[in-house]
Structures are given as C-alpha cells and as structure tokens.
C-alpha cells in the first residue's frame, strides 16, 4: 500500500514527508525574529492572513543552525498552529510504500527522533520523517 510522499532535502539529506502532514509548500518572505525563543524558532512570517512560525530545521535536528537564506518551506498544521518547516529544496511528489528500518540500523542524533520509516526511491533508501517531531514544544505529544 503506497502513500503520497513529498521528497525534500533537509540539511543536505533527502527525506520523504508524508503528504498528509503537508498543508502547502510556500516561499517564505521576511521572517520576524522572536527574541528569547529557542533557536529552533527562526521567527514568524506572514502567510496570507496567517502568521506561521518558521522552524529552522537544522536546529530542530540538533545540527548547527543553517545560516543560508530562508526560502522554501513546508507548511504543516500542528494543534491548530501553522508552522513553516524550512527545507533546502523540494524534489518530487510520488507515492511510496513505507518500509520498516533494516534491523540493526541506529540513526544519528536528531534524525532518530524524527524518523518514522524508510521509503525506497529508484533503489535508494530515503528516510521518511515526521514533521510534528520537528516542532518544539510538541515532544510530549505523540
């Protein structure tokens, strides 16, 4: 059984994001910083009449925060709030079947927290991630 996935690059890696988590894909304009918020929060941005919280994906993964220009983002709705999860680029939308991890594979650092499976794309294994786990302040919720 295949679900629709969005193939994106985050922190230099290719990942698959379940399309049911994706509200839309946008180009983020100006980001207003939120002083004193965690470094995962890049700031706030306006998306039509909504305010979205821009998530620095690298920081959320525990990697050094990216200082590149913020451009594309995947909008996801978590508990009534809209978040824009920054991505390096978007590659594809296609149906894939989710596979379990190969036994014995231990993922590094932040990736372990967000991973929810593996999809196979043109013979390459691509990590499927859960956007919700990238959102700070949501860790307790499953």
């Amino acid at each position, binding site marked *: 059984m295949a679900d629709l996935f969005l193939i994106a690059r985050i922190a230099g890696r290719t990942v698959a994001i379940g399309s049911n988590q994706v509200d839309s894909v946008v180009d983020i304009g100006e980001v207003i910083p939120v002083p004193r918020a965690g470094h995962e929060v890049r700031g*706030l941005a306006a998306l039509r009449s909504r305010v979205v919280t821009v998530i620095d994906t690298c920081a959320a993964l525990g990697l050094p925060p990216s200082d590149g220009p913020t451009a594309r983002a995947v909008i996801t709705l978590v508990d009534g709030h809209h978040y824009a999860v920054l991505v390096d680029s978007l590659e594809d939308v296609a149906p894939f079947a989710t596979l379990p991890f190969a036994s014995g594979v231990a993922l590094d650092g932040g990736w372990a927290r967000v991973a929810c499976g593996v999809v196979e794309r043109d013979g390459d294994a691509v990590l499927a991630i859960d956007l919700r786990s990238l959102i700070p302040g949501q860790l307790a919720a499953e």
Partner: protein
Amino acid sequence: MDDLLQEFIAETRETLEALSGEIVMWEADPSDRQRLDAIFRFVHTVKGSCGFLDLPRLSRLSHAAEDVLAAVRSGDRIPDTALVNAVLAIVDRIGEIIEAIDVGTALDDSGEDLLIAALAEGAGQSTISGSEALNVASTQPGRGATRSVRLSVDLLDRMMSGMSDMVLARNELARRLRDEAIDPTIESALERLSLTVAEMRDTVTRTRMQKIDALFSALPRMVRDTAAELGKTVALTIEGADVELDREMIEMMRDPLVHIIRNAVDHGIEAAAERIAAGKCETGRLVVAARQSGNQIIIEIADDGRGIDVDRLIRKIAASGDRSEAQLRALSESAKLDLIFEPGVTTKSEVTAISGRGVGMDVVRANIEQIGGRIALSNAPGKGLTIAIHVPLTLSIISTIVVGAHGQRFAISRQSIEEIVTVRGDAVRVDMLGDTPIANVRDRRLPLVFLCSTLGLNGAMPQPELLAIVSVAGGSYALAVGEVLDTEELVIKPAPPAVMATGLYAGQTLPDSGRPMLLLDCAGIAAAAGLQFGRAAVVDDPVVEVAPVKAADSALLFVDLDGVRRVARLAAIDRVEPVPAHAIRFSAGKLRLSVGDAIVPLATVLADDAIHQIVERPEVSVLRMADGRSEIGYVIAEAIDIVTLEHEVMPADEPALVAGVTSIDGDQVEVLDMHWIFSACADPGKHMRAEPPLCLLAGAELGWMDAFLRPVLEASGYRVVTSPDPDQPVAAVLAMAEDHALPAAGAPVVRLRREVSGDGDSIYRYDRAALLEALSARCARAV
C-alpha cells in the same frame, strides 16, 4: 431591558429547541440522570432570568418545576409518568409564554395552577394529568417574526480572516501601484476600495466585540432587586466595564455571572443584624471588576460576606452519601473549596426563590469551562469570598500600543499601560540604586526594566528615553522602550507553544503592515526581569511615595525684577500674589505694599529708590512670607515653576539678599536668603496678631447676621462663630438691642438696632463704620 428580554427570549427558545430531544428521551427513560440534569438546568436558568427580568408567571412555573426536579435528583421522588408529564407540560407552557412575550400578546393564565398542582406527589391519578392541563391552557399563539439572526462564531471567524486577507491584498496592490506611474482614475478607484475595506473591517470587527458593559449594565438593578427581596442592602461597585470581550464570551458569561452574584447576595452577604454583630458595615459590599491580564480577561466578583464554611460543606457532602467525612477532610484546602462545584451541593439549608440548591455552581463551572475558561475561588471565612473567572482573550481584539525595541516592533496591551513618559528634567528621571537603575516618575519610584535587554536584543544598557509605565498584578514598573510608534487595534491570536514557552509573549498578530508582531506579556516581562511584587508592597506603594524631605527642597523659580531667574525656598513662602503696581509705594524709608488697610514691607533686588521700575510694570507679583511674627513681601516680575533643588547650594561670600547659587537644568540660579531678607526688611516693632479675635453672633437676628455681617466681619479680620465653643474665648458678642439671654456671658456685647436713629447703647445695623469701630474698641478692651 428590551435587549435583555430579547436575548432571554432568543436564548430560551434556542434551549427549548435543543431540549426537545432530551425531553423525549427523558420521557422514554425517566431514570436517565443526564437528561434530568439538562432539564433541571433549563428550568433553573429560566427561573434565574425571570426573577431578574420580572416575569412572575414564568418564575412561578419554573420554580415549581425546579422543586420537583430537585426532589427527583435527591432521590426523594420517583419520576413516574405523571410527574414526567407534569414537568413536560410546564416546559411546554414556558415555551408558549416565551412566544407570547415575543409577539406581545396576552396569554390566558388559567390552567397554570392546575399545571403546578399536577406536579404534587400523587397528583397523577387524582387530578387532571399534566397533558390534560396543558390542553386546557393552550391557546397556541402565532410565533413572532425574528428580528435578529444568530450567527455561528465560526462564520464570523471566517469572515474575519477573509477580511484580513482582503486588507493585505489591498496593501499589496497599493504597493505595486505606487511603484509605477498610475492613472488617476485607478488611483481614485483604489482609494474607494481602501475606504470600503476599512469600513468593512470595522464592521466585521464589531460583529465580534462587545464591551463587557453589556454584561455589567444589568447588574445594579439585579443586585438591588435581589437584595431587596432578601431584606439586605448591598452596595455594588463595578470596575472595568469598558474591557472588550468576544460577543460569544459575553453571552456565555451572562448566566454564570448572574448565578454567582445571586449566590453572593443570598448566601455570601449576611443579614444586616448578623453583619453588625460581626463588626462589619451594615451594607454589604459587592465588587465586580473586569480586567485584562496577559491573554486573559479576568472577571472578579468579590463580596465581604461570610465566605464559604468549608466544614459545613464537608458535613453536607458526607451526609449525602458518596464519600466519608474523613475522606473529604483529607483533601487539600483548595480541593475542599472546589467541593462547592459538586452537583447538588449547597451551603444553605432552606431554598429561596433566588438561589438555593448550589446548583448554580456546577452549572457555572460547566459554562465557563465550555469557553475554555476557569474559575478560581479565594475564600476568607467570615470576611468574604472572591470568585475570579478567567476567560481566554483568544480572538479578542485589543487596543495596543506599538513600541519599537532594537528595530523590531512589539505590541503592548494598552490597558496595562498607565502612561508613557519621556525621561526629561527632574519630574521623570532615572536614579541609580547601587548598580540598579530605577525610574523616578514625579516622585514615584518604580523598578526599571529595559525591553531590549530583557528580550536579549543587545547587551549594552542604553540610556533610556521613553518609559512606558506598566501596571501588572501587584504593582507597576517602568519599561524602557526604544520608541513608541503607534496605537493599533489588533486581533490577537494565540502564539504556538514554542513561542509561549519564553513566557514573554501573550500572543501574536498580523497588523496591516503584513509583518507579524508579538504581543508582550507585561507580567511575563516583569518576571523575566526578576521583579517581585509582594502584596505588602502594593499597599505601601502610595504611602511611601510621599517623601517629607521634599518640602524643604522644593523651591519657586521666578524671574526677578532685574530679569534674572532666581529661586526661593517654597517652605518660607506663604503665597504668591499678583498685585497692582500702584499698591506699592516708597514710604517711611521703605517699599511698602498696601493690602487693604494693612501695610506690608517689601524687599526687592533693586535699590530702594528704584520704585519707578516697579510702577512702570502693569502688574507685579509679590511673594508673601511670614515668620509667625512679622510679614513681608518680595517683589518679583513673574513666577515660573516649582522646582526641586537637587544640587548643592554654593554659599555666597557675604550674607546678602542672595544666599548662594545652585544649578538647575545646568543653569546657575541664585537662591534667595530668607533670613537676611527678614532681618533687613521686617518692621521690628510690628506684631502680627497671633489669632484674629473671635466674634460670636447671637440673638434673634442670627440668620441676618450670618448672611450680612459675617462677610463684613471676616473681611475686617475677625473670626466669626454662631455658637460658643468653650475652648475659644469670645472677644465680643454681636446681638440685637432687645436680645437678653446671651451666651458667652462676660464678653463685651455690641448691640445693634434696626432703626436708623436710636439711643447710644446700640448701633444701626447698616452703619458699617460705627459697627466696626465699636467692635474694635470692645475687642481692644477685652485683650
């Protein structure tokens, strides 16, 4: 009142519609507790509203039904078919009356006694059953046309967000068009669009918001009526009626508030006799206050009644069965208080028409929690109960002040800002307490918080220029902001958890600029800056501010006759008086001022013979000074301001008119030497009268004397009384010639007559000169 009635009708109608399903199910299964509770709540609410809208028939019906249902709830009655029918007949009847009220037609009230009688135990078989009674009574009036539409808030939400989109699209369009040379016709079309959009936005905004006054305006009457019914007097104070709240919230708050206030008047505030016995004022006090705190609206209902008797509450609940007393006593204090919210609990033994079964409180809590609010109790047994209802601000539109810090904009709720002041001069300055800067705003010392550094925007502590005086629960503080940009009405939405976790923000918003903005939580900022407001601090606050030291340091800044600015210590000055220049003469070797008949020696900075410099001016001012013995004046050109002498006074080399020099706003200003002026100027021989002599008015013409003579006497330097005071010796008594029994025997008497001519013992009462002369002679003799 009409509005309230309309709302009551609409609400009851709506509840009835929703209830019809419940009623059918209750009929099918009378033991269904949930249905029973729903119907019970309905009649209880109707009862509450009726009492307050003065609808006695509805009140009677609903009270009767409530009684029966309460008996069912407590297990005293079994809900048999007859009872169910009777209750349903009453519910139907309520519906009919509501329709009749709406249309404005009269509805025959025959049969209502039967309906109520049908509720009685065992009535089912012996009397007419409820449904038959209903048939007797029913006349089926036509339903009135509805004059208002009830909209779901969801729809309003969508309208609102559509509106915001429209505003942003308009802004975008305007920006694009500005970049190009545009056709004036397009420009005017855009202008029209802008106007329409702005108007539309106002309207849409208004559809959601309402002043809480809409909720509060009915309270005074309600409290008065409720109190009157119970034979109590209650003084109601309402605060914060202009807080704006979501319309839906207001509607949801109405019932809980009515319940709570009725409970407070009925249960909380004691009868007058009991209050006096407890050492309280006979009149009960009830305070209803609304305020906005962070992202919540808090409505506080505080009474000074007997509070909740927790022990009694526990005994009652234990007696009703479910839990043992020991179990209940083991609860925490707050959990014990919360028992008041258990269904079916009351602290009162008898049931009144006002309130009674404690039913209010579980309904109240259910209603408030439904809108995402919470309710908190603060109980002081014997002293009163404060109930605080917190409801979220979500989607409220609040009036904000937009401030800038380090180039970024933030909104602060206008309600929490007392004022915005500029650091300038002495009135508003920043003092250092050790290494801690504090704001001194017109002698009010306030903790100073720098917005930039609290937000971590930059490390260096800048020189504060603009201070927003912010009040939070417990106290006030000064928030140093970079700039104050604007005031704006904003729709505040809750911020995501990651942002709220900072504790500094109350929400986020998207203003017209299209750049998201954060609403600051002033209480959170105070906490982040480490400010601590104790309760004691609040009480002390205004008292501590009065610094007795100040008086000595305050001085009057004025322009002297030679055009130089000088100061004189305020403590030595009695008053500053403008006088006409011709009242000043150079006589008997001195400048002197005529004040009525008195002559006051004057000092000036000028040489004594420079009188022409004074007379040339149309008007001068005189600083009147007195040392208790003599009185002098100092002539100045014009008073400027009252200033604080905060810098040292450098003494002059020799004692003279000028005692020294001090710095005021960086300017050298001479300080007058009062001591020297007195020594040089005061008349050595002249004594000021320590106390003006006291005249007692007495006798048959007291009224005339008080009206006519008193002003004359007082203008001439006497004090006047109309009844003798044993502590104050009377210098002279004024009476009519024929008055005999006079108070204050021993004091000389001046007698007056009504006729122009008469003997030498009395004086014609309109002969002012003779009267004053006689009085002065008598007083002189007495002294």
